[in-house]
């Protein structure tokens, strides 16, 4: 069946979109758990070591789903995504900016995960600083999903994304409210950045992905744009 927006309809295409969404959810949960970890949250059912282990394990699960997401996006021939597009941003042909953000997010995620695995070798202070890249990774991953995904106009991805954003904002505010990091200027800056991001998102969404002709404006190659009867490359 053809859809009024660019798609290939192959299994890989569905897997890419679904694993992408799951990765976003897992990243959101990881971030929330990370905040719970650093703010020393604990309860009778959720002791500190459980929160910490969950944080690490959910992040690894996110890496797994991210791997499937990237693999299936390459395997699916529709958008002609090359392996290199997964790690080098902005060089692809399909929605280069928005896909590129995905590559940036992936790079950041790799940095965070690899440094965490090697943390004993690098010294605590260095590890802590690099781990903060996680706060940069998440919004970039979100923008990638909203910009690249072809499902944004259907409610489920939009509500999912907004739900994840709400959870992340709550987590960030909780962290700032708990008094970490100690520098008031840094906290104010972080709160400002979070507010600016949300505000910017609120302005951009209706004009961008939810607006007219987003597929064309976001850089989908002309050959792939189509309404009914558009030619579909043969899926492998």
């Amino acid at each position, binding site marked *: 069946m053809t859809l009024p927006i660019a798609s290939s309809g192959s299994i890989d295409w569905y897997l890419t979109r679904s694993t992408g969404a799951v990765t976003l959810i897992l990243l959101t949960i990881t971030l929330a758990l990370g905040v719970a*970890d650093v703010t*020393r949250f*604990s309860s009778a059912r959720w*002791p*500190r*070591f459980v929160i*910490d*282990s969950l944080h690490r394990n959910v992040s690894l699960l996110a890496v797994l789903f991210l791997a499937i997401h990237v693999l299936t996006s390459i395997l699916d021939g529709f958008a002609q995504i090359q392996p290199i597009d997964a790690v080098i941003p902005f060089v692809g042909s399909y929605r280069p900016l928005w896909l590129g953000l995905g590559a940036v997010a992936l790079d950041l995620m790799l940095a965070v995960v690899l440094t965490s695995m090697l943390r*004993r070798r690098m010294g*605590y202070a260095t590890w802590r600083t690099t781990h903060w890249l996680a706060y940069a990774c998440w919004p970039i991953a979100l923008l990638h999903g909203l910009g690249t995904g072809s499902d944004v106009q259907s409610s489920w991805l939009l509500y999912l994304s907004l739900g994840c954003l709400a959870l992340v904002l709550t987590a960030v505010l909780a962290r700032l409210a708990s008094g970490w990091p100690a520098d008031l200027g840094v906290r104010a800056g972080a709160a400002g950045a979070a507010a600016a991001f949300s505000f910017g998102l609120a302005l951009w969404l209706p004009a961008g992905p939810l607006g007219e002709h987003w597929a064309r404006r976001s850089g989908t190659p002309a050959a792939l744009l189509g309404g009914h009867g558009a030619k579909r490359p043969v899926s492998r």
Partner: protein
Amino acid sequence: MSEQLRVNPIACEAHGMCAELLPERITLDEWGYPIIDQEPLSPELLEHARRAAQACPTFALILRRRVR
């Protein structure tokens, strides 16, 4: 050959996971910092002690062979 638990008090940031994972030997003071009971560790407890040392987010809990 016995192992000894030590805390690096400078690295310790009172996360408190050690006391959860080895309550037989580690309790927390009212500010959240660990107090270690230096009673020798039995073989079963040794496993838990290792896990506790690995779980410490700041590498403050150290399990080392008793030198003397």
